[in-house]
């Protein structure tokens, strides 16, 4: 599928990786930057700095006053956004194609000379804390996920939340930000993907003109995944105001590059893609004991968690929901998956891979993601081949290895108890 995309790959002298895909269907261009840094590169005491930093990237650089970034992007018929993940931080701009140079200018200037001032830091700290209240503290699912991951992992850098712990957000200082910027926002730690209505040679020339003078920095310290093997189920209860009890189970799984990843992604699809999936069919349709259920298994650089989630229906004991949920994965490990179910999962994975290529931003993201996770964007085509090769034996073998009670953490949300009032800053 689409293996003939005419993608060009260049490495500038300072180490910046550049990937260009001309695509002339709409008069727009998508400019996407991935920095190889996320919450995984943090340490206790400054958790959340990656995400906080993403916010600071919009507040001015040597050539552009604060707020100019968004003004120029929107005047170029465009929009910009950033997002932070465990393993990377990305920034995307989509503008009318004649304005590509404006974006290249803005992006190179902030990579070269971002303004890091006490005023910027204080303002974004306060906005990020508001975001944390929205997505975690006032969201039952967000909170339960934080409780799950922080209890499941012992040494992995995935144990703290991407948004950071609130006391750490309060403690991050200006020097932390300056060190972070120099180390991780260096050209040799970045990759840029340009997809859209541009000529490849022109895009390359622009990038060389604006980025060539940025100096490479010493490579960042490697992250060690020191997570010890888990040998026994962990259970944790979290009390908060909520309408319904819910449960999340996280099984220690594998990294994106691991041989078993493809089989686990097939299992994720069997569990939760569509209304014929096993979790929906069992918990919601047949037994009618859950209001919501899902499985997710995000791809990560280090070994991550395979997560099952269910929210009980009113009047149903959460213990019953949990036990049925475990039953669903146990039957997969016992080899109950059929040939047709396997085919269905592969078809679904293939269809969703095609859907991701509907627009420039989707294409750019798939290229950048695979380049960052594997060092080779062409893996975007092989991911489907990996899924295609998964056999019924692989499904049973990988499921019985992954879904062992001794390797899981179960977090249960118990509604009712009101939290103590939080200390509010004025």
């Amino acid at each position, binding site marked *: 599928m689409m293996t003939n995309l005419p993608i060009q790959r260049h490495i500038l002298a300072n180490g910046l990786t550049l990937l260009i895909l001309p695509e002339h269907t*709409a008069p*727009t261009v998508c400019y996407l930057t991935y920095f190889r840094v996320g919450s995984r590169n943090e340490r206790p005491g400054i958790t959340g700095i990656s995400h906080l930093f993403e916010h600071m990237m919009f507040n001015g650089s040597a050539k552009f006053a604060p707020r100019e970034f*968004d*003004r120029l992007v*929107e*005047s*170029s*018929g*465009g*929009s*910009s956004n950033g997002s932070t993940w465990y393993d990377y931080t990305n920034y995307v701009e*989509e503008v*009318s194609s004649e304005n590509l140079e404006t974006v290249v200018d803005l992006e190179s200037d902030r990579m070269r000379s971002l303004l890091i001032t006490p005023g910027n830091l*204080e*303002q*974004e700290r*306060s*906005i*990020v804390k*508001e*975001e944390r*209240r*929205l997505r975690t*503290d*006032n969201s*039952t699912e967000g909170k339960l996920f934080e409780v799950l991951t922080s209890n499941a992992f012992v040494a992995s850098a995935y144990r703290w939340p991407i948004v950071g712990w609130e006391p750490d957000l309060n403690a991050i200082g200006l020097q932390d930000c300056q060190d972070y910027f120099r180390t991780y926002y260096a050209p040799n730690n970045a990759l840029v993907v340009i997809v859209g209505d541009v000529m490849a040679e022109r895009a390359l020339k622009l990038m060389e003109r604006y980025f060539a003078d940025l100096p490479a920095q010493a490579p960042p310290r490697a992250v060690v995944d020191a997570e010890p093997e888990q040998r026994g189920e962990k259970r944790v209860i979290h009390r*908060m*105001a*909520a*309408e*319904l009890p819910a449960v999340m189970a996280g099984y220690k799984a594998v990294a994106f590059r691991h041989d078993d990843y493809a089989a686990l992604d097939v299992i994720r699809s069997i569990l939760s893609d*569509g209304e*014929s*999936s096993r979790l929906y069919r069992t918990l*919601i*349709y047949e037994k*009618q004991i859950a*209001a*919501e259920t899902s499985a997710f298994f995000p791809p990560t650089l280090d070994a991550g968690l395979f997560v099952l989630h269910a*929210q009980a*229906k*009113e009047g149903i004991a959460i213990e019953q929901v949990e036990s049925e949920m475990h039953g669903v994965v146990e039957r997969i490990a016992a080899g109950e998956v059929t040939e*047709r179910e396997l*085919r*269905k999962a592969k*078809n*679904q994975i293939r*269809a*969703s891979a*095609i*859907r991701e290529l*509907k*627009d*420039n*931003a989707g294409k750019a993201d798939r290229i950048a993601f695979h380049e960052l996770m594997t060092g080779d964007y062409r893996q975007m085509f092989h991911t489907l081949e990996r899924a295609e090769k998964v056999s019924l034996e692989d499904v049973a073998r990988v499921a019985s290895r992954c879904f062992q009670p001794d390797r899981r953490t179960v977090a249960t949300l118990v509604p009712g108890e*009101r939290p103590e009032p*939080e200390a*509010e*800053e*004025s």
Partner: protein
Amino acid sequence: MSGFRLPEFASRRLPNGARLYAAEYHALPLVDIEVILPAGGSSDPLGREGLADMVAGLLHKGAGARPARELAEAMDFVGGSLGAAADQDGTRVTAEFLAQDLDLCLELLSDVLIRPGLAEEEVERARAETLAELQAARENPGLMASRRFVERIYPDHPYGHATAGREASVAAITREDVLAFYRSTAVPDRSIVVAVGDFDAAGMLDRMAQRLAPWERGGGAPRAVPPPRPAAARRIVLVDKPDATQSQIRIGGLGMKRTDKDFVPIHVANTILGGGFTSRLVQEVRVKRGLTYGISSRLYPLVEQGPFLVSTFTKNATTRETIEVTLGLIDAWRREGATADELDKAKRYIRGKFAVGHQAPEALADAMGEIAFYDLPEDYYNNYLDWIDAVTLDDVRRVAALRFPSDQAVILVLGRASEILKDLETLGPVTVEAL
């Protein structure tokens, strides 16, 4: 400079009244179909609020020869998707399949429209699921604030309830209600079917026509929606959520009709006020003051006047300040209008967003569906960007003064009364409600 054109749509009207449209898209091996049925939440009978959306959800729970489980299996097996939901004015049934599965897609879609099972067992299940969702929604402060706000700006009006309904009205829905609603509203008479995908357009029209020929006319007319009445004065409502550490804030009132002659200038004006990230509200409330992570102003144009609302959230301690700053910005905006620089930037922003937002096949289908549903000129979107360009500062000043009501605004806050009520009362009388 604008240059955007919708793809060429071939069209046909069937003897049963359904209007079909098809346009080719060959960038990916996909087919997207959008069907718009001419009745939505505003057609819910009194005391049965939520019925239109429940019927929408039931259409694919078994249809033709396939019970619900088999239908889901057939669709999931090829990685296709098919679903439906009601908005206030209509019900959208959407399908997306790989082009190689077009036959199956048309078979399932015609079954869902013409031969849905609507079995008693499925109605019971849907009722229970909707009740569970309504209960789960109470954990989502942003969603609850928006729902309460809509109830407040449309008292005693068919737009005055969420399409999901209320717990009591959903509990009262019977299979007879479902069948009656399906027979009167899921009819081809005024329905619109738009397909965009990797096919030959003329052949696609033939295939759709063949599949939809047995769809029988209903004959009745959809319930007419009366014009809503604007509020007489500003009102403050506080919905108490005792555990909240953050207040959800909604400010607004009646917005515009989709066919409003000022649709384009109002859209431009709203973009300047609270559309993009460089809009006044975002710059002043988030960027300059750090009071929130997000603020926006939006209009939801409908057959009649849809909602206009500013949405934001802030920590308990800054609730009143955030409301005051926001109201001040809206008032200044109504008095002064925009600057030439703001207008120019908004036009460029809208143009760019428009091109970026119309790459995917379903977005193209949706644009054509909107034209057909609201009886806009067929070349509407080919001229749209020229109209955006033609908006003047006087246009913006005129609509800003008239069409962004702040003195009759409903101000709804969902938050912790014990901490914020006293402070809110300094703004005016506050009605407190339970969540």
